[in-house]
């Protein structure tokens, strides 16, 4: 009996003396309730399902399982900050809150706490400058890239000149919607088009005034930065006033199936930007079906696979998992810390060959991050809705943004932030 007790005590002592092999924790600050749930749910499903796939198929990342504890933000900035505070002590390695408002609040916090913040296609654009924003990464594209790509596309449609054209920016009256204004103002000076800014208050259920203004002023093109119900109402109102849908271009958060379906056939021709591929012709989806959905482990009902927002949530998870993998490689051990994951983000290179290995050939642009560059190449494609087929079709390949204009703006804005926050530039 004494021997047994002694053996048990020794086993316990050994077990506690060994380093705990904890899971990798990637909190999912999601929104499955409230007015923006229709976008939040598929994004979170795509995000969660990819990590489930890695756990089920590969045994996690580098042999360590990944946990994605969810915290409901309801797209509310205060709740988002509460979620961050309540989960950061769990060993959180990176945050991706899918909200520009929450991102703005978290930037100083993550910088203080030493946890990377990954905001693909949203958030503070000038965080692309790694010299100032050490803990924030927003590759492969940001809002200023989006604005620039839209204008470059319109230039291409108009024989290289937008001189004398009228472009209206219809935007969500929030930090998110206001992001492209500065860029578009610069681009309007450069290319000679007249820019009209038309804000819509959240949530945007009623937009009659704004569309009457569009009808009166007859802009040649409408660029649109909306989210949630604002998207569906805007598309419907554009149809109502018979605005030519092919001249109506949304940012990537205004270009999902949800946004166009309620307007029916009238939505045909509406265009939107995207920084990732559309459709289900990627081998990764077969694996998700096999290892996640068919195994009954899907985050949602399993019916969103390949939809625009689901794919984008999955893409965010792909990049995060690759950054963790890179961090493990750099650190030489699998159970990496948040600081090591930051190093992984900064040293991350995703090549076309790697995308093909992941079952995502041509899905996103290749890029290589660096100490200075946290923003990536910024390319985006144009997609167009076909209501009769019920799908988006890609119109272009990746269009690169106008870096000559954007770099100066990024430097200006990030320098202002550095001054305000009392930061000195790094990477020198």
């Amino acid at each position, binding site marked *: 009996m004494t021997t047994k007790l002694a053996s048990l005590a020794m086993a316990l002592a050994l077990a506690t003396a060994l380093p705990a092999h904890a899971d990798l924790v990637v909190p999912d600050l999601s929104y499955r309730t409230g007015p923006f749930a229709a976008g939040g749910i598929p994004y979170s499903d795509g995000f969660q399902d990819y990590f489930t796939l890695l756990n089920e198929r590969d045994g996690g990342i580098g042999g360590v399982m990944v946990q994605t504890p969810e915290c409901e933000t309801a797209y509310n900035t205060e709740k988002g900050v509460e979620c961050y505070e309540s989960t950061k002590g769990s060993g959180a390695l990176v945050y991706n809150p899918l909200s520009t408002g929450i991102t703005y609040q978290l930037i100083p916090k993550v910088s203080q706490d030493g946890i990377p913040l990954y905001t693909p296609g949203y958030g503070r654009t000038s965080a692309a400058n790694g010299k100032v924003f050490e803990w924030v990464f927003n590759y492969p594209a940001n809002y200023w890239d989006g604005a620039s790509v839209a204008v470059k596309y319109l230039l291409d449609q108009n024989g290289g000149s937008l001189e004398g054209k009228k472009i209206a920016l219809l935007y969500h009256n929030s930090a998110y919607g206001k992001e492209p204004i500065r860029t578009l103002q610069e681009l309007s000076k450069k290319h000679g088009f007249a820019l009209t800014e038309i804000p819509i208050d959240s949530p945007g259920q009623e937009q009659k005034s704004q569309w009457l203004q569009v009808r009166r002023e007859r802009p040649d093109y409408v660029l649109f930065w909306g989210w949630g119900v604002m998207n569906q109402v805007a598309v419907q109102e554009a149809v109502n006033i018979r605005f030519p849908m092919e001249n109506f271009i949304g940012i990537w958060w205004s270009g999902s199936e949800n946004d166009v379906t309620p307007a029916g056939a009238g939505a045909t021709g509406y265009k939107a930007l995207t920084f990732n591929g559309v459709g289900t012709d990627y081998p990764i989806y077969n694996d998700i079906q096999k290892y996640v959905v068919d195994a009954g482990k899907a985050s949602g*009902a399993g019916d969103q696979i390949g939809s625009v927002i689901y794919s984008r949530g999955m893409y965010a998870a792909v990049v995060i998992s690759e950054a963790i993998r890179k961090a493990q490689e750099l650190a030489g051990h699998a159970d990496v810390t948040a600081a090591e994951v930051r190093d992984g983000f900064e040293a991350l290179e995703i090549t076309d060959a790697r995308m093909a290995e992941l079952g995502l050939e041509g899905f996103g642009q290749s890029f290589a991050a660096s100490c200075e560059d946290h923003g990536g190449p910024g390319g985006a494609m144009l997609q167009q809705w076909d209501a009769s087929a019920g799908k988006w079709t890609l119109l272009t390949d990746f269009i690169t943004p106008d870096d000559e204009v954007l770099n100066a703006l990024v430097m200006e804005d990030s320098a202002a932030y550095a001054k305000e926050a009392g930061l000195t530039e790094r990477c020198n």
Partner: protein
Amino acid sequence: MLPDQMLFAMEVTLNGLMAGVMYALVALGFVLIFKASGIFNYAQGVLALFAALTLVGIQQGQVPFAHLINAVFGTDLHHFGWTLPAVLALALTALVMIGLAWLIERLVLKHLVNQPAIILFMATIGLAYFLEGLGDVMWGADIKTLDVGLPQGISEAVETATASLFGYGFFIDRLDMVATVVAAILVLSLTLFSQYSRQGRALRAVADDHQAALSVGISLRFIWVLVWSIAGIVALVAGVMWGTKSGVQFSLSLIALKALPVLMLGGFTSIPGAIVGGLIIGMGEKLFEFFAGPLIGGATENWFAYVLALLFLVVRPQGLFGERIIERV
């Protein structure tokens, strides 16, 4: 020929009036319940959402609680495989709303008789969140297309007529025109019901004086079921109008925010007040946005509606058509 600005202002005014009708449709539900029971029903917006979700679910043959059932029993249920005609789906949804009113009375209101108004208000806050969650679990949170055959888009008749008159064709949405007709029918029906039916007279008696109504044998509990049923059906109408425009999604519950200034202005106890309040708010906010919006950066409608309502409140605290409150000591 009239100057452009005047023509545009006329177009904005017409559209503002029509938007006001849409706000009034939501406000009507608040008024009905407040008038009969003194309860400010915080859940009215969610009732509209719940009604619209149920309508689409029934019409498209969606299995309620499918996600939950599938998760628990490992089944793969989604649809019954039918698509019902809009009229039948509307009738069935109205029955669901009546059933819901009965349940609300049995499970919540019955237990709160004689409690202060603030307690009943709190109960409706709880009810709002419960119904929102129930709607999510029953029908899912994805955006649903609502199609009961209502027309949408520009009225070409109005456009042509105004173009020949003024040289500029006005935009009027056909859905807004339908909403105006529906609102007129609704107000007329409610007026006839409350003036000429036995239940309507009982409802007015309760609205005037609970104690006196009880003393002559009117069942307060029946009246509550009745009024919540009517408010549920009004919510269904509002849900159909707003849901047709934007698809049915959870932001629909926020249309209640558009009804609040209408209530402040029109009074909480007057059906004509809800309509007139809606028209003034709709027209006022649209005209302000048209004239002042470009000068101060736009997006003025959400806050200006409340400023307008506050201005009226200062002058007439009970609202335009509300009952003057006289307390004798």
